[in-house]
């Protein structure tokens, strides 16, 4: 089926089998492999992208159902060649190890801070409760998001 999607500001016309998941088309057809497949059940959040202004788990969407949508993947997370302040905070605070969960965590962090610029630690933990990390034990992630919030508030 022919679909039109905009990804990181670039329009694409694709012909996709309706059986393919959005995460598969992002990774395989568009070669944007920063979006990861961790579970295919909607639990881990490693496939998180932004679609039409909302974060979603792209393993829970058919590619054909994204016709007409505008997506942002991690490759488009920062508007330019520099790290976004949230990315910089994760870098500064060692908020990742293997990096598999990282794109999803960044989108969840941005989603939180857009709605709540001064979150408590509990609110940070709640905001990432759709994202699983097997490496860090979450503390460095919470610290990174706390630091990102401070940076954004003071900028």
């Amino acid at each position: 089926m022919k679909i039109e999607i905009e990804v990181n500001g670039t329009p694409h016309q694709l012909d996709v089998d309706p059986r393919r998941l959005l995460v598969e088309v992002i990774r395989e057809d568009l070669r944007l492999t920063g979006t990861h497949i961790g579970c295919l059940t909607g639990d881990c959040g490693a496939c998180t992208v932004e679609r039409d202004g909302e974060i979603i788990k792209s393993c829970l969407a058919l590619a054909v159902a994204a016709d007409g949508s505008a997506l942002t993947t991690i490759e488009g997370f920062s508007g330019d060649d520099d790290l976004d302040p949230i990315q910089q905070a994760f870098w500064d605070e060692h908020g990742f190890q293997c990096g598999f969960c990282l794109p999803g965590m960044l989108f969840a962090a941005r989603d939180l801070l857009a709605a709540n610029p001064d979150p408590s630690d509990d609110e940070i933990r709640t905001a990432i409760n759709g994202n699983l990390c097997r490496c860090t034990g979450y503390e460095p992630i919470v610290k990174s998001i706390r630091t990102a919030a401070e940076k954004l508030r003071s900028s």
Partner: protein
Amino acid sequence: MIATTFEYVAPAGLEDLDRLMSQDAVTVLGGGTWVIPELTAGLRSPGTVADLRLLGLATLEVGGEALRVGPMVTYAQVLRAAEALTGSAQLLPTMASGITGGSQIRNVGTIGGSACYASPSSDVPAVLVALNAVMHVRGVRGLRDLTAEAFFVDAFTSALEHDEVLEGITIPASQRDLKVGYKKFKLSESSYPIATAACLIAQEADGTVSSARVVVGAVCATPQVIPVDDLLVGQQVASALEAIADRVQDVCSEPYEDVLASAEYRRKISGVIAKRALVAAGVVA
């Protein structure tokens, strides 16, 4: 890639959907949080996937006498409308705020879809029963309305016939000063509830209860309305808590059982969760 072949259709109008639904082996796709992983895991092999996304079914009509919830209304929409929801309808955003899986799930998961899936472990069914919701069902044979209680027939079984869809949900108006409480118990953050409780309490100025509704979910295959009038009406909630917990355990005498929790465990904690919901409602002095 999903292993089985199917035809994917996103009908543009309800009449197109009606025609599709009269085919064999149609799976309706709403938010997708249940259906897509099942397709990926090969648990479902539809001939046709009918995607509801173009039908304009995500309207939430607030402000009239009753609350009209389209079947594609997401948890996130309900949360955004929270300030406009009064009385018993407050139960919806209270429940929606705790839906597992992050905002990514709440942005796409739908109240209607959860109702149609009728999983014992979901949050939505007991809340709809607590709200005395009316379920509007549509099929080629026509339209029919059911109470929420009648809609939930068994585990993973709603009252929908194979060629019917849920067209909408109406939450009747209630008194504005109703207190609502919702609690659920799950074994870990990413897990499904094994007991939920929803309560709606109206109190006089001195705290005596004038009306009460308590519904327990996830413990049994379908939501259980707990008869509490004899225990609560005319009483202070605090004095009735233990009796309510015992009554809940009696009502939930045939608990559901799955890999998450045994029937006996569910029955044991059912009363505790009901008490916690009442405390959460702020009605226990």
